[in-house]
């Protein structure tokens, strides 16, 4: 099932919440109104009862009530909804006085009144036609000491009408209100998400050939503009990555083209006429040399690819850097002797890593250092245990590297002096491999060089917690 659209979902949610809220308020208002109307009715009954009591206090006995009722009737005159009934205590069948239209059965009230004098009692009742009454009843003492039950009833029809009108209007307004809330929410979301179309447009245009498109963050709501900035940043990095990749394949093709051209040319020239087997042998040997270079480039490339996707690598182990440095130095010691260069290894520290890779990194740096170190000088390997990391420094005196080369030294195929290093069999990948190895070890590869004085390469490893 396709999930409903965000605007629809938000619209529905808002409507539901709106409905709940409106209904809650309506119910609250209904009860408040009921309570308030009830209180008002009671108050007005109570004050009316007071007036009646006052009038009754002028009567000497119950007989006077039926003979001179007009004083009492005046009290309830003009109040259509009031019914005043006064009974004789001894004869409760027919009232001494009755005004108004209320048809309430008075017996429960009369029964309740038997006991006490001066007590106000409220009661609700419903007559045969369904009209609701609120009745206030009280025993009132006359001048001669006899007391008569007085019942004052109020017809609640007005209040009921008011309440039902309120309910009706609320119920009628509710659906309209909810539709309005829902539509507004839907529209607000639609408008708020309108910039998403911009996202879609840009996403549709982006491909590896064309990574130049960016989202415009002007006029975007804050949440979306943050997202847009994030996406722009991602596009920027992708752009860089893709450019590097394509630059890299250019470089790779170029690197491979040179030796392949050499091979082809040499073979073609050789085959163009008859030669002695000695000459053929020479050509084959030089072909092998060239091919070895190609093979080395391919192996280095494979190694780099393997290091950048380190899924299938052996787990790291504790490595004594000094041992590995000594081992690599041992490998290079003969070449160093030949060039009359001293090799020194100083210091010790332990790191977590892959033995073969660390050897390889040291070896790449050492062979560079030996290549550029003048005769009679010293190439030194210095291992330092720092407070937060472990450093392995490979330094050699010599002509050094000019500052503008330094930022690119660890790039693949970057060469300071391309023709010379290629002639020496360098693949141009040695330092790139060093950098990849170090990043695999969560470390860094750095270089510092003072032309004419000293060049120092540094491998920084994270410190091992032992």
């Amino acid at each position: 099932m396709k999930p409903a659209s965000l605007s629809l979902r938000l619209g529905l949610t808002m409507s539901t919440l709106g409905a709940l809220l409106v209904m809650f308020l309506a119910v609250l208002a209904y009860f408040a109104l009921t309570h308030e109307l009830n209180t008002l009715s009671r108050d007005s009954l109570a004050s009316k009862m007071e007036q009646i009591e006052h009038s009754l206090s002028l009567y000497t006995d119950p007989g006077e009530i039926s003979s001179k009722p007009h004083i009492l009737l005046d009290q309830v005159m003009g109040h259509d909804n009031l019914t005043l009934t006064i009974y004789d205590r001894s004869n409760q069948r027919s009232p001494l006085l009755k005004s108004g239209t209320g048809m309430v059965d008075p017996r429960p009230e009369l029964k309740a009144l038997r006991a006490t004098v001066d007590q106000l009692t409220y009661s609700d009742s419903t007559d045969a036609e369904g009209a609701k009454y609120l009745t206030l009843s009280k025993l009132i003492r006359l001048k001669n000491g006899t007391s008569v039950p007085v019942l004052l009833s109020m017809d609640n029809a007005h209040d009921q009408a008011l309440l039902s009108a309120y309910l009706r209007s609320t119920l009628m307004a509710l659906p309209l209100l909810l539709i309005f809330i829902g539509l507004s929410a839907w529209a607000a979301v639609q408008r708020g998400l309108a910039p998403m179309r911009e996202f879609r447009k840009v996403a549709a245009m982006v491909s590896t050939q064309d990574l130049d498109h960016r989202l415009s963050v002007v006029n975007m709501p804050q949440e979306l503009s943050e997202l847009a900035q994030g996406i722009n940043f991602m596009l920027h990095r992708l752009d860089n990555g893709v450019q590097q990749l394509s630059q890299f394949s250019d470089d790779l093709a170029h690197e491979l083209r040179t030796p392949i051209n050499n091979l082809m040319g040499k073979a073609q020239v050789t085959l163009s006429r008859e030669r002695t087997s000695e000459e053929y042998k020479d050509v084959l040997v030089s072909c092998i040399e060239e091919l070895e270079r190609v093979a080395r480039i391919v192996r280095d490339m494979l190694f780099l690819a393997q290091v950048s996707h380190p899924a299938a690598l052996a787990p790291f182990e504790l490595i004594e850097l000094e041992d590995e440095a000594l081992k690599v130095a041992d490998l290079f010691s003969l070449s160093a002797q030949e060039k009359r260069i001293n090799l020194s290894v100083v210091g010790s520290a332990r790191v977590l890593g892959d033995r073969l890779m660390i050897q390889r990194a040291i070896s790449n740096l050492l062979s560079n250092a030996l290549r550029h170190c003048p005769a009679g000088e010293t190439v030194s390997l210095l291992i330092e245990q720092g407070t937060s990391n472990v450093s392995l420094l490979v330094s050699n005196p010599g002509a050094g590297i000019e500052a503008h080369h330094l930022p690119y030294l660890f790039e693949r195929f970057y060469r300071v002096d391309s023709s010379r290093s290629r002639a020496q069999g360098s693949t141009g990948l040695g330092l790139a491999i060093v950098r990849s190895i170090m990043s695999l070890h969560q470390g860094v590869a750095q270089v510092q060089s003072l032309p004419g004085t000293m060049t120092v390469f540094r491998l920084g490893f994270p410190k091992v917690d032992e």
Partner: protein
Amino acid sequence: MRILVVEDELKAAEYLHQGLTESGYVVDHAATGADGLHLAQQQAYDLVILDVNLPKLDGWDVLEQLRRTHSTRVMMLTARGRLADRVRGLDLGADDYLVKPFEFPELLARVRTLMRRSENIPVPQVLKVADLELDPGRHRAFRGEQRIDLTTKEFALLHLLMRQSGEVLTRTQIISLVWDMNFDCDTNVVEVSIRRLRAKIDDPFDSKLIHTMRGVGYVLEARE
């Protein structure tokens, strides 16, 4: 000794065939996995050299099916150098695993090692080639009557060359076996060491024992 080469790439099969035949082996060739499996099951081979990327039935399947019935030695040959692939190959019962691109002399050396593994030829205590003698136990070398002083690495190198006398050893092999460095290193240590070794065991004498195979490597043998 018979070797079956299962390889779909014609050029590679061709030079493997030639190289192995010239080294004295009888070589058969199969171009697909199915043919290879059939041949390996029908005939008795001393060694099967098996490529992984094969049409129809790939090298893993061939190896797996062959291992159910035969214990023929198998050397896997593949461009996949990842650790997981190598482990898989060896787990499936391969006896050796060589990653392309490889150097032919290394392949040859490994073939010889595999062949030797079953024959169990004991390595003699004192190695002797022509009048050159090497006693690893006492760490001494003689050419004729003359004692030769060697450094540790020179001794290890000579030991290796004499142990594999008559076989060509490549620079990579030598670095791996003598210096225990198993990756490409940009150094001329082998050339320098061979030169120094020659100065001690060959230069003062008339018959030379260490020979350079240009473009391939070095071999120690007595030549007429």
